[in-house]
């Protein structure tokens, strides 16, 4: 094979099965040396599995891998880095209280005994300059922004001698501007002879950065195309397998009374730092207030403060006229507030209990579910049967352990439970994250239905398209402050991006 040396990575016939699913089905995937190759696909298409195989985290059930023309077996990330493959995960693997330099040498065998951090710091600084990855080697991780932490992860891979860099959804946590910086870095790496594979489901960035694009759907390769010879529409069709979501057709909103009024709200993060600063927002019945922002700018704290899960240090939260700041979740709930938490399995559901048991989580104290000290089995099953049917939850039965349901069905289960209590205010955090197209449509439809029937909705999301298509107004959070609230029909993605990076609304519009 003469042209074998052109390939940095060649994977042939890769199959990986998990019980009940074939995550990768005889995938052929090859990456040329010195290219930026995008791996495009929906959540659950098998992108991350394929890359974890390449990084030695999973072993394929079938198939062969060549790196730089040499047949290899990858058993661990250590093997992978030995062959020059480094991976930057979606969730960073950094020790928060250590410095950048300490994190970068963590786990390395050399130096074995005496540690000259000064030398390491110099090396890192040099690497950082070469690839436009500005970061202070002496800084501690917790002091860094998410974008900077990502740079540390990239430096970590480069320091270990990675020539092939895999990035798993690198832009998910970045502002549009930070993403642009990252792409510059990737281009400079490629010009130095490195190879980059990056996983994404965002069509725009895939088109603008990559040389070639491989599209995965349901664990199989649909096609590999040159970015210069394709279009967003073609990519979308290949990715989804049918024509993409038309922009949601939603009715004109009819805002009514104020259901939620937040005034001068401040709250602390889990680390005790100020996460919300003097936030004021209003939501009326029959409207959706979108909350945009880069991950970690106070969105989670805002949602938790409203539903009573997080103490408030200053300010008022009035729900339908009564102040609920620092009340217990139960009191807030009783005032008609529903909550769709960000982590479905973490605080939304008890995954080891059955579907029926999860559906009574909010009403297990009240008749008919509870009569005195005992729970009423019949009432529990009737309640569950009704909701499972009404919300089209796909489950083998109401006694099935919730753990066994798919992501979309987990979310429908939460929606069923929350909506069935007929809330006047719904707080939804990333309600469609990780869901496939069908489930996303269903969840969005349910939320719009709630709006149309008169509930006020706070929709927190990182997906700007979702915010633009669902919300009536969009508030942007940056470092715990509201940078501005704009009606969604007037909002432009670029302007929102600037606000997400800390520019106040007036300045953005002044330009």
């Amino acid at each position, binding site marked *: 094979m003469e042209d074998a040396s052109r390939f940095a990575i060649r994977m042939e016939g890769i199959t990986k099965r*998990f*019980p*009940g699913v074939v995550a990768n089905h005889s995938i052929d995937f090859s990456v040329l040396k010195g290219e930026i190759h995008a791996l495009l696909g929906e959540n659950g298409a098998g992108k991350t599995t394929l890359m974890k195989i390449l990084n030695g985290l999973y*072993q394929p059930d079938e198939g062969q891998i060549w790196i730089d023309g040499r047949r*290899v*077996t*990858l*058993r*661990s990330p*250590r*093997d992978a880095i*030995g*062959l020059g493959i480094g991976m930057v995960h979606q969730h960073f693997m950094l020790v928060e209280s250590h410095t950048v330099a300490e994190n970068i040498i963590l786990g390395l065998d050399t130096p074995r005994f005496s540690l000259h951090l000064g030398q390491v710091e110099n090396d890192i600084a040099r690497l950082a300059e070469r690839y436009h990855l500005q970061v202070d080697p002496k800084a501690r991780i917790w002091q860094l922004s998410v974008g900077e932490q990502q740079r540390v992860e990239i430096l970590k891979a480069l320091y270990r001698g990675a020539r092939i860099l895999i990035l798993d959804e690198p832009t998910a946590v970045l502002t549009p501007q930070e993403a642009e910086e990252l792409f510059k870095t990737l281009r400079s790496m490629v010009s130095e002879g490195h190879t980059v594979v990056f996983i994404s489901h965002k069509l725009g960035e895939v088109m603008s950065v990559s040389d070639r694009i491989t599209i995965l759907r349901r664990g199989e390769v649909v096609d590999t195309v040159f970015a210069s010879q394709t279009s967003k529409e073609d990519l979308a069709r290949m990715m989804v397998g049918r024509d993409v979501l038309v922009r949601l057709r939603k009715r004109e909103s009819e805002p009514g009374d104020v259901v939620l009024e937040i005034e001068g709200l401040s709250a602390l993060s889990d680390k005790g730092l100020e996460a919300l600063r003097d936030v004021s927002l209003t939501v009326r019945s029959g409207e959706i207030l979108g909350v945009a922002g880069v991950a970690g700018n106070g969105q989670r704290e805002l949602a938790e403060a409203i*539903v009573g*899960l997080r103490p408030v240090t200053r300010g008022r939260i009035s729900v339908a006229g009564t102040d609920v700041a620092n009340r*217990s*979740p*139960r*009191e807030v*709930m009783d005032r008609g507030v529903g*909550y769709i*938490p960000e982590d479905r399995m*973490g*605080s*939304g*559901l*008890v*995954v*080891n*209990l059955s579907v*029926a*048991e999860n559906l*009574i*989580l*909010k009403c*297990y*104290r009240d008749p008919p579910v*509870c009569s005195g*000290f*005992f*729970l*009423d*089995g*019949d009432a*529990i*099953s009737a309640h569950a049967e009704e909701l499972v049917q009404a919300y089209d939850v796909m489950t083998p039965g109401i*006694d099935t352990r919730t753990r066994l349901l798919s992501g979309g069905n987990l979310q429908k289960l939460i929606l069923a439970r929350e909506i069935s209590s007929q809330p006047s205010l719904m707080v939804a955090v990333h309600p469609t994250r990780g869901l496939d197209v069908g489930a996303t449509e269903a969840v969005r439809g349910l939320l719009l239905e709630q709006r149309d029937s008169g509930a006020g909705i706070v929709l927190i999301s990182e997906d700007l398209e979702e915010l633009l298509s669902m919300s009536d107004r969009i508030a942007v959070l940056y470092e715990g402050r509201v940078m501005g609230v704009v009606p969604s029909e007037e909002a432009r993605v670029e302007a929102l991006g600037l606000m997400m990076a800390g520019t106040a609304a007036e300045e953005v519009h002044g330009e």
Partner: protein
Amino acid sequence: MESSAGRLLAGLRGFSVRLEPRLEVRRWLRYAVPLASLAVALMLGMVPMMMQGINPITGYRDMVLLAFGSAYGISETIMKAIPLMLAGLGVALAFRMLVWNIGAEGQLYMGAFASCLVAYTLPDAPAWALLPAMVVAGFAGGALWGAIPGALKAFLGVNEIITSLMLNYIAIQWVNYLVIGPWQDPSSLGFPSTPRLSPSATLPMITQAWYLPTVVFLVIAAVVAVYWIVRRAHSSREKLEIGISFLCLAALSLGSIWFLGGRRVHLGLVLSLGAAAVLWLLLSRTRWGYEIRVIGENARAARYAGMSLKRNIILVMLVSGGLAGLAGMSEIAGNLHLIKRMFSPGYGYTAIIVAWLAKLNPWGVILVSLLLGGLYRGSDAIPGAPKALGMMLQAVIFFVLIGGDVLVRYRVRWGRGA
């Protein structure tokens, strides 16, 4: 020049053993792995036996024969199992909510103390009044002792593992002080024990005379069971569960009267089985049990649903300690009839093993208690074997079974790296 140690190290580094979670646990593994683990544990147990010069094959044979080989052996095994059952149920309840009550031993001693306090204060009370009062006192003594770490955890966030463990020593030494001090039997000639309990303060033995009341009780239980099956159960699995539990109850009660009648087994057995039934019902059918399960599985979801962690921690520790207290009460009032110095051979600690091996299931606690009770009894069997042998076997079994559990949930992958 590379040293051989260096080469060995390099060789080891290339070799990797990794655990991959099984996404789907095969049913047969759930049974095969514990059985295989038990076999491994028994093999490991042969080592200390051989070091003592005991033939392990005959040693094990003697142990099994002594513990389960005769009606007398079985009744003695049950005697050892009763405190394990009660304390094990208490520990299992706390563990269900991820409250790590390591203090069953101390709670057991305080239960024994409190029940004897009642017995010695009211020496002339008739059995029908005294025994219930002792049961209540035993429960209360253990419950209050358990509530201390519970309250400290709930209000101050103090780690309950440490406090409940430390309170064990206080309880044990308190009882020791009583038996060599103010409560010592003057006629015991310096032997550290309290005077014998009066007959009306001792739990009655199971005898043939129990048939009639038991049958009456079973008829009532049958009516209740039918009511639950028809009116309350919300799935066929539940109906089956209720049916099976009733049949177990009937078989157990009648069988034990037939089998154990006239031997040394006392009312504590009924108390244990009743406690298991109540606990099972509580966990699976009541509002409180639902809260305990939700909190144990996912405290964040529980908080959002408005469940009070503080209240539940204290309540659970009260009941958990109370059950351990009952273990102490039944051991004294049913078996020993007086308090000796260090009267419990670590029942409260073994209860932790019992609860864990039973996967925190109340009926599992009953079964595992019988097995470990057999081990207590059986280790007396081997002539020349030190007392510690039984404890060692217990520990080995526990280690290997818990370790083996990993194999049920994970798949081991190994090989040499590239």
